[in-house]
């Protein structure tokens, strides 16, 4: 498969601060690719370089097969971006903002009206279209920006924290819409977010970055599994007999009995749970209650970027980087 985006040791330094550090990454066509990371991890800087408004210090990248150092025009024509910070003209109406965008991107004149109507419907702002943006609420402005980013049918859409400030309904709506776009328009979507649930439910793959480097990259399900899998907790009087049963027939390896509860750690609890219930029923073991514990993206995020990781880094002996970071922390 051809990657839509490929970066080659992409690096950006601001003075002595390395925002993006020799980052190499491939994003395939049609993916919804999530970028997670703590504040200051370098997410926005990475996106700025990919959409050619920020020059890398070293390294390069391709977007839609075009080089970010030399082919600005081609890249800009084929991408859409919703910036983290507001970028609308508040002294203009919603309609005017969209019209300007259509002109800047040379959307065929005969299609402009129709497309504006459809993106406005999508973000449910049809009835506010002729109002000045200064009279919109923050979330409405955000929605207008998203509509604007879609107006020229980009092949790649960058969304820098698109759902920040949106109410749950709008957010849910946005997710549906992003999924639909991916399917219908064959669009590749790269989004950054601080909402772990969003990354989990929306993204095909996520990269967790910290200090400008990728610390983890995979499908959300795989990342969650890498933390050790799901836990099934069964409330049961005779825990030992269930443990013997499960270990005996090879259904699970890690089974603990504790306080009248049996904790079974498995790769996929959703599939295994019915089997366990079945086996217990056949063996005549009575189960009082059951609940599941899935590790979520929050756990994954904390695992890769939390205090633990930084702590280990700081302990690395004599590492120059580590020393510097320590000083900075202080």
């Amino acid at each position, binding site marked *: 498969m051809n990657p839509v985006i490929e970066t080659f040791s992409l690096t950006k330094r601001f003075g002595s601060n390395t925002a993006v550090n020799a980052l190499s990454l491939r994003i395939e066509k049609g993916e919804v690719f999530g970028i997670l990371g703590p504040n200051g991890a370098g997410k926005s800087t990475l996106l700025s370089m990919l959409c*050619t*408004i920020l020059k890398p210090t070293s390294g390069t990248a391709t977007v839609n097969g075009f080089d970010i150092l030399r082919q600005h025009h081609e890249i800009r024509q084929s991408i859409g971006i919703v910036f983290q*910070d*507001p970028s609308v*003209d508040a002294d203009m109406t919603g309609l*005017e903002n969209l019209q300007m965008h259509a*002109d*800047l991107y040379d959307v065929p004149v005969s299609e402009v009206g129709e497309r504006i109507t459809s993106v406005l419907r999508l973000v449910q702002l049809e009835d506010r279209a002729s109002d000045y943006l200064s009279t919109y609420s923050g979330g409405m402005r955000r929605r207008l920006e998203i509509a*604007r980013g879609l107006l020229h049918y980009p092949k790649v859409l960058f969304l820098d924290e698109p759902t920040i400030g949106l109410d749950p309904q709008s957010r849910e709506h946005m997710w549906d819409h992003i999924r639909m776009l991916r399917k219908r328009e064959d669009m590749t979507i790269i989004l950054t977010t601080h909402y772990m649930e969003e990354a989990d439910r929306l993204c095909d793959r996520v990269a967790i970055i910290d200090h400008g480097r990728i610390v983890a990259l995979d499908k959300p399900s795989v990342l969650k599994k890498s933390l050790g899998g799901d836990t099934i907790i069964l409330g049961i009087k005779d825990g030992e007999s269930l443990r013997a049963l499960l270990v005996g027939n090879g259904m699970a390896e890690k089974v603990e009995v504790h306080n009248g509860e049996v904790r079974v750690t498995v790769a996929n609890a959703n599939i295994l749970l019915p089997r366990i219930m079945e086996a217990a029923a056949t063996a005549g073991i009575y189960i009082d209650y059951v609940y599941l514990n899935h590790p979520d993206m929050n756990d994954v995020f904390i695992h890769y970027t939390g205090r633990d990781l930084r702590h280990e880094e700081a302990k690395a002996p004599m590492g120059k980087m580590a020393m510097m970071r320590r000083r900075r922390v202080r």
Partner: protein
Amino acid sequence: MSEVRGIYTLWLREVKKFLREKPRLLNAFVQPLLWLFIFGTGMRFSAGVTEYNYQEFIFPGLVCQAMLFTAMFMGISVIWDREFGFLKEILVSPVSRPSIFLGKMLGASTDVMLQGIIIFPFAYLIGARIGLLVFLEALPIMLLITTGLVCIGLTFASVMKSFEGFGLIQTFINLPMFFLSGALFPLTNVPDWLRWVSFCNPLTYGVDAMRTVMMGNVFVPLFPLYIDIAVLFGFAVVMFLVGTWAFSRTE
């Protein structure tokens, strides 16, 4: 073609915003009136200029002043765009930097020209007879002045990253350029140093050219018209190139 469309939409935005800003339009109308009727009347009766009507003398200068202040303000408006984020939307679009600059420049220049033209009817109030022909002769001169001034403003906006410099521009560009242009007093009777400094000011040639076409024989020009025009043209071209260069470097 796509570049032309981008330039057009940027031009349209500037003009729309200018016309919508009612307080600014009111200001644009009233300020020259104050200069003309209060300052002008006062000076007319106390400065002792006898060859011509003093109000008629400062009228072309006030047109230039209005254009100067508006040009700086409009040029600097790029800083607002940067501050409120809209500049990013423009910069990430496929429209090239020189075209963005051109669109902004044309839009701001249109505003500045409108600003200058608004003042013309006041000429009748002070008794200056400015016919259609004179008005049409003044327009190209105003256009040259406008282009150069707007490009100065845009250049500053490209270099400055925040509003902090705005007051500096008022003090170090607007007022000196205005006072040193001969807009308010003839440069024929002033000390040499003041005359020479004024000759370094491109606006001096603008004011001089405007007076040449607007005042007729009563006014003795500092320079022949063709020299005024040549200097203004050179000024416009140089500032346009400098502005394009400075703006293309912004990140």
